């Protein structure tokens, strides 16, 4: 196999002009010609729906695929807290430069300057666009938009719709796409799952999909393919992701030659409801916005078993405020998560299983009144109450970190193209903007920036060279070959007939990845995982059971196919985590820490992106490095003290 040289296509010149200059240099396709080009969009969450809508508005023919029954279900819908934009409506000193800097610093200096700067610039347009679509953002009494603050920032730049910002932004993007479906410019395929990308002469020329209701496997060709399929936190089994979130699209693209960047960069969100029992199917996030008014604490003594309200102030340890006085409860997610883990590991955990820390609203209620606190967070309080049967207005919430977001993903250049020409990745599916740690309220921003404002410009530059060329017909041998491989794979899964359920294997995989490649990683643990995982994968293939057939709705079969890809991805995560001999952002190697337990980066060796290429052996991918240059910000040790 041969590897592609990594060319990030970062534009030269001053950062502030880079995107403008780059746009000017891109080839344009005239409106009459755009309708001759067909684009396939996989996934219809924020990135996919916004891209499909915008491409169709520009005149392209778009085929959009989702495995859900409607685009409205995409997991973007569950984002709670908000979306960042450098509007500076608060007059508190915000600017594009500051959002850029906060994001670079929050990412622990492991993201690309030019991409992040562009993201900060486009944040302004996103708020305008969403507001015009009817997204009901929170407002002040004067009718203007309200903001709140989020972790990793000292300005209030987060726009929000109660605790349902993702839902409202997704509805906006979905409705924009629905308008195009009504106009016939987007063809929408629901309950249809992407199974593989088809390459011809090294270019992406189409996809093979499976109709989840009939099992029918079909090919679709296009001039370009855009993957907007989200992240892979479900590799941990228990995560805040929805049940069906999976890595299949990006992993299958990786197997076909797309580089996978920084797979070990995963985000463990600090404020989730701790796991209760073994039957637990997922973990529920409590928005980070709660840290605006909630104070995090644990009993100062590990042996203190008193109920929280009987523990006096003097016996409490508000450890975030103590250790990080400048940012206090609003330190970035990775810092807050590790601090919680240190407290629980040291025996200060709370709750029956001693697996959480308190997030307390007592002071906020005393200061603002219950009503004001309810106006900000009632839906979250209610959600907490439903799950735990406890009243967070009375007693503090119990929270603990949980896998939430994956900064790693398909490697893309400045145009969002992967290492396979004609194959793009947007939103959480790519690796581009968040470095080693994503700041809160930045995922919605990135998904929409990619879909509304980046890809629609950059894709023209690629397709322009195929003017007057039809897409490769699906009768081509390349499609037949990919379909045949898929059919063989599916019949293999259906014939395993073992003694264990697919979920059982997924739980076991999740435990291994959580233990060895979760909140902290060690060489020893990663080696252990890399020895164990191939065996577990083999066991899965011989001992899992998939009932039913491949000709009707078969949810176990869907899970089994996705789990295969999680197994291989888990190995890549461990390889990457083992190779990166430093601690940065969400990647914490126990060998690289200060005596106080803070992360120690190795800028000399690791100011770079690890882009891995598939070799056929998931434990031995091939590494290519993309060096990162910091010309506009100084590399510093992050300090939130």
């Amino acid at each position, binding site marked *: 196999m041969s590897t592609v040289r990594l060319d990030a296509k970062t534009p030269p010149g001053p950062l502030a002009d880079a995107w403008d200059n780059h746009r000017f240099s891109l080839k344009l396709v005239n409106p009459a010609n755009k309708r001759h080009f067909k684009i396939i969009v996989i996934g219809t969450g924020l990135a996919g729906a916004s891209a499909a809508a915008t491409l169709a508005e520009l005149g392209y023919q778009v085929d959009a695929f989702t495995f859900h029954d409607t685009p*409205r279900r995409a997991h973007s819908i569950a984002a709670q807290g908000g979306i960042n934009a450098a509007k500076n409506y608060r007059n508190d000193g915000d600017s594009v430069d500051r959002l850029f800097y906060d994001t670079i610093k929050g990412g622990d200096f492991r993201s690309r300057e030019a991409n992040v700067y562009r993201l900060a610039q486009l944040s302004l347009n996103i708020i*305008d666009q969403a507001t015009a679509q*009817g997204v009901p953002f929170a407002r002040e009494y004067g009718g203007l938009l309200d903001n709140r603050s989020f972790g990793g920032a000292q300005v209030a730049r987060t726009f929000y719709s109660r605790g349902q910002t993702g839902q409202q932004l997704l509805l906006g993007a979905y409705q924009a796409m*629905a*308008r195009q479906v009504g106009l016939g410019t987007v063809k929408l395929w629901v309950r249809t799952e992407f199974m593989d990308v088809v390459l011809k002469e090294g270019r992406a020329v189409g996809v093979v999909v499976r109709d989840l209701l009939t099992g029918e496997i079909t090919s679709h060709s296009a001039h370009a393919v855009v993957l907007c399929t989200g992240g892979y936190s479900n590799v941990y089994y228990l995560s805040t992701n929805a049940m069906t979130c999976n890595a299949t699209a990006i992993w299958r693209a990786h197997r076909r030659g797309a580089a996978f960047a920084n797979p070990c960069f995963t985000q463990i969100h600090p404020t989730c409801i701790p796991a209760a*029992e073994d039957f637990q199917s997922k973990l529920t996030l409590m928005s980070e916005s709660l840290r605006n008014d909630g104070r995090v604490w644990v009993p100062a003594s590990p042996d203190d078993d008193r109920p929280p309200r009987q523990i006096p102030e003097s016996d409490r340890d508000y450890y975030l405020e103590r250790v990080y006085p400048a940012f206090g409860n609003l330190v970035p997610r990775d810092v807050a998560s590790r601090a919680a883990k240190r407290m629980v590991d040291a025996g200060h955990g709370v709750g029956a299983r001693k697996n959480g820390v308190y997030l307390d609203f007592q002071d906020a209620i005393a200061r603002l009144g219950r009503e004001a606190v309810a106006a900000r967070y009632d839906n979250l309080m209610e*959600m907490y109450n439903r799950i735990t049967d406890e009243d967070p207005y009375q007693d503090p919430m119990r929270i603990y970190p949980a896998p939430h977001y994956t900064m790693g993903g398909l490697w893309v250049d400045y145009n969002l193209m992967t290492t396979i020409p004609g194959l793009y990745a947007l939103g959480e599916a790519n690796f581009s903007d968040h470095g080693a740690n994503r700041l809160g309220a930045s995922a919605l921003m990135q998904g929409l920036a990619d879909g509304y404002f980046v890809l629609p410009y950059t894709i023209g530059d690629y397709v322009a060279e195929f003017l007057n060329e039809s897409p490769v017909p699906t009768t081509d041998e390349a499609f037949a070959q990919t379909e045949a491989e898929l059919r063989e794979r599916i019949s293999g899964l259906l014939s395993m007939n073992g003694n264990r359920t697919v979920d059982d294997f997924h739980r076991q995989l999740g435990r291994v990845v959580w233990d060895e490649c979760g909140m902290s990683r060690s060489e020893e643990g990663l080696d252990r995982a890399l020895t164990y995982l191939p065996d577990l994968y083999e066991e899965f293939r011989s001992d899992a059971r998939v*009932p039913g057939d491949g000709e009707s709705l078969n949810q176990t079969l869907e899970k089994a196919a996705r789990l295969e890809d999680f197994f291989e991805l888990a190995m890549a995560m461990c390889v990457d985590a083992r190779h990166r001999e430093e601690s940065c952002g969400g990647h914490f190697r126990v060998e690289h820490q200060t005596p106080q337990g803070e992360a120690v980066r190795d800028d000399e060796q690791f100011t770079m992106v690890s882009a891995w290429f598939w070799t056929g052996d998931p434990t031995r991918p091939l590494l290519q490095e993309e060096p990162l240059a910091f010309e506009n910000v100084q590399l510093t040790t992050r300090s939130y003290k």
Partner: protein
Amino acid sequence: MNITLRAWRQAGPSDEGGFETYQVSDVSSDMSFLEMLDVLNERLTLEGLEPIAFDSDCREGICGACGVMINGRAHGPQAATATCQLHMRSFEDGDTITVEPWRAAAFAVIRDLVVDRSAFDRIIEAGGFITVATGSAPEANLTPVPKETAETAFDAAACIGCGACVAACPNSAAQLFTAAKASHLSLLPQGGAERYVRTERMVDTMERFFGSCTNHGECEAACPKQISIDFIAMMNRDYVKAKVKNRGNA
């Protein structure tokens, strides 16, 4: 807890369905209803039987994928709760629980508890949007929106498109869904320009698929997001206005 579950089993859209009874033991009251089904499904799989198919995704009550009739009530006994947020502590040890799919002509059963709700998408495609092409939006703070208006619009926009309103309605009408979607946009100044065209198109499309509203109000009672039927009144008024004004887009 020990539960007797009567579940609707149906192999495919054109197959005949029926109830099967399962004993589910060692149910924890902290389990969600869907986790109870997960546990049963793993057991059925190991016994060589086919698991019960049901839709579910976020398990936080926001994606709208889940939704079944539990003891004859859409999303079960707890008010303002989607099926995924219902916990077994809402039931008693020894209970018999009947679970079946949404029943509505527009929502064909696909398999077991899974139904086809795509008619909702047709309503949105017909007009459930504000026409604003990417890039053409004005500065966001150029148009102030009174806080109360934004809050009311949000109340409507909270709809998760689960279909409980249709399932609960004796007529299988989709007025609450359609009204929530139309009102969210029509209440906001940004959606004012298309207000009447939008309502007309959405309602006309809705009527191609769903029954007629006769003001039972069951939809509001079943709605996990507590969306008010006041929005239906607003939509009806806008629809009449749209027709009377004869705005030239019939």
